[in-house]
């Protein structure tokens, strides 16, 4: 017998109206994160004069350009269901390599690629260890963290200043973005460009879609004939590259190489990604969310600076409380559908 033709049409109409509410569920976390960030600025501007100054807003990106790049790399890894703890250390290594090679008299245009290459190589090695030998990502990248930071100290336990003219020129380049004279540093522009490129790769290339697939279900992705190995090795390599690039931006920002740079920054990067609505179990999330996450952490820092009278321990307590408040707010704003 033939099924009545009105039936599917009817059910489709019902389901479609429901979709408007539920179908876009996956955008909820990231939009909530964005909303919270906006709220912070509104509240901040009520409380502190000068908080909503365009330059203050842009400085969030300027002061956190390296963290944005780090978080973008980590986004790939987390989306693919992994984790990368080595980013802070690779950033430090990258600053160290830059400073050290410059001191050794290398031309700056060779130094930057060398630093990027080193970070990428560490990422690649981690990816291979994780993929080919089935080592858990957490432990492999923890090893990578020890290794990269250790390498910094092997190079030098002292901090190495950078006085290369090209580096200072780059560091001081400002890109005007608003008519009022508000500007971004070169580092921030690069960071935002990296985020844009990452979004493109994630949504418009096969590699990017495979990253989501592997994060959703690795075994399924394998059975679907996706290049799971390439994806897994790829995301760690990319993250290594991003960490190294973050290191170069950090070098521009700070003009020195030091093995103690970026201590604990890997956790900041992971936190930023997660605050931006990406699920640690993989498969759900957006680069935009990670950028928002970084800016949120930056906003917390900005509030602490603006508050200006906190003692050290209150700084920490308030930082933790703000983090909690943001997450709670994000929760409260999201409708029930977001589970």
């Amino acid at each position, binding site marked *: 017998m033939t099924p009545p033709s009105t039936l*599917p049409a009817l*059910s489709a109409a019902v389901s479609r109206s429901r979709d408007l509410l539920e*179908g876009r569920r*996956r955008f909820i976390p990231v939009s909530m994160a964005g909303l919270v960030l906006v709220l912070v600025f509104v509240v901040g501007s009520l409380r502190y004069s000068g908080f909503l100054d365009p330059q203050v807003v842009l400085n969030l990106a300027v002061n956190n350009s390296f963290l944005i790049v780090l978080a973008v790399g980590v986004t790939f890894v987390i989306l693919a269901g992994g984790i990368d703890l080595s980013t802070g250390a690779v950033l430090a290594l990258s600053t160290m390599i830059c400073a050290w090679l410059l001191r050794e008299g290398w031309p700056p245009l060779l130094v930057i690629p060398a630093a990027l290459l080193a970070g990428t190589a560490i990422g690649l090695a981690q990816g291979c260890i994780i993929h080919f030998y089935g080592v858990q990502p957490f432990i492999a990248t923890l090893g990578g963290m020890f290794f990269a930071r250790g390498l910094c100290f092997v190079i030098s336990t002292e901090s190495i200043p950078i006085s290369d003219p090209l580096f200072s020129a780059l560091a001081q380049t400002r890109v005007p973005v608003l008519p009022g004279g508000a500007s971004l540093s070169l580092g921030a522009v690069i960071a935002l460009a990296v985020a844009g490129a990452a979004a493109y790769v994630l949504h418009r290339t096969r590699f990017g879609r495979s990253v*989501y697939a592997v994060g*959703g279900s690795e075994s399924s992705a394998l*059975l*679907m004939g*996706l290049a799971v190995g390439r994806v897994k090795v790829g995301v760690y390599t990319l993250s290594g590259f991003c960490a190294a690039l973050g290191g170069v931006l950090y070098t521009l920002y700070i003009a020195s190489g030091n093995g103690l740079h970026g201590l604990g920054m890997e956790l900041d990067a992971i936190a930023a990604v997660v605050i931006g609505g990406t699920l640690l179990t993989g498969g759900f999330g957006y680069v935009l969310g990670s950028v928002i996450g970084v800016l949120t952490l930056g906003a917390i820092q900005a509030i602490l600076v603006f508050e200006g009278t906190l003692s050290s321990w209150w700084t920490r307590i308030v930082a933790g409380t703000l983090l909690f408040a943001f997450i709670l707010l994000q929760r409260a704003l999201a409708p029930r559908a977001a589970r």
Partner: protein
Amino acid sequence: METTAEPAVHMSGIVKDFPGVRALDGAGLRLRPGEVHALLGENGAGKSTLIKVLTGVHRPESGEIRVAGERVEISGPLDAERRGIATVYQEVNLCPNLSVAENILLGREPRGRFGISQRRMNRRAAELAAGMDLDLDVTRALGDHSIAVQQLVSILRAVDLQARVLVLDEPTSSLDRDEVRILFDLVERLRSRGVAILFVTHFLDQVYELCQRMTVLRNGGLVGEFATAEVGQRELIGHMLGEQAGELDRLEASAGDDPPDAGAAPFLRARGLGRSGGIAPYDLDVAPGRITGLAGLLGSGRTEAVRLLFGADRPDTGGVEVDGRPVPLRTPRAPIAAGLAYCSEDRKSEGLVAELSIADNLMLAMQAARGWLRPVPAKTRAELVERYIAALRIRPAAPETPVGALSGGNQQKVLLGRWLIMQPRLLILDEPTRGIDIGAKAEVQRLVAAQSRQGTAVLFVSSELEEVLRLSHRVVVLRDRRVISELDNDGGLDTDRVLAEIAEGGGR
């Protein structure tokens, strides 16, 4: 042009060992272009493993694979796809986080000017779905859809590969007759184009309807290759089960013919139970010893209805009373304490804990009900586990085997066993016979019937309408996410009557 005698796939002497088990022992098959070939065998016979060897998921210990006459070593699913072998695996192997469209087209996404075009992809996927008479929103996440829809999506994906060889591992296990019809038409179309199709199923009717030839496996070994026309059902079952075939007759004789106990008063009442977007508020009475079947088409809301009853989802409206006392439905705990049991249709993600052993999975619900402080005594546990492994013919019968290493049908039996052990007052079974073999199916039906004779009420959801009618005393018919009628089944109810009800229902 190749000669017709050249098999598209020829596997021979395949041996595959898993730790402690030899899953395949000299298995093989010959698959010719333009034929639909059935691969048959009991649960755990090695069908899925043979398929996974063919697609490169497993490396065989020894044996030979020829594709189009050429000896090959297949290094992985990607390699298999490139050699023209498309596969629908038994367990749905898609990514729940991605949209339906992406799942269909992953790896072959249509590109626009700026890389992958989401729009084109959705359009293409919608076309493909429409080609199979499926109306679904391809932009929604796959995980939002029922397991049946997911199965259809994985078929769509494989079909779209336009391969020379199409492997279908139990594709119809959660489909109802309309979808099966559509699938068969599709298979027939592909076959006539010269595609070789390997079809694994436990529905022998489907084998006789669709397949020209068949290969039978038993205990990982090859029993033989037969032309469908030359072997009768009885004989075929004999090949599959070996010397145990006699047992089946005994089972079938005892199943299904018990008198309905119509007089009992209901102990469970659901009133106005509903959830927006899930199922419209409905009423239901359940009496001890009665089997109630839920009939409806794919997506009609059967699963949603029973999930509410069990507290698996939180209802928006209405409630449930057991023995006149309301049961809170915030979590399944209270319903379980009230004597309810629910066997989910999605054993992989809602049922089993893959890395735990058979024994642990069997005992899970009972242990959860007892609380952590009162572990089931070792002796009781061993007895129960042994009893249910035997009763459900779970293979391998080693209680400490991790469930993830079992064949699909055996996993289903473990899930069922978990709830049978609880001796519930109401047993809710959502597609309990998905993927289990004839012998086990008869066994399950017998167990269900036996339970009901002891006073257990049963709610039975199955996409096989015949099965529902054979077992149930009463049939609740659903359509478009609402209950449209309840029919008594005292033997007189047939499938046409129910289908007619579905077709005209809701108009009242």
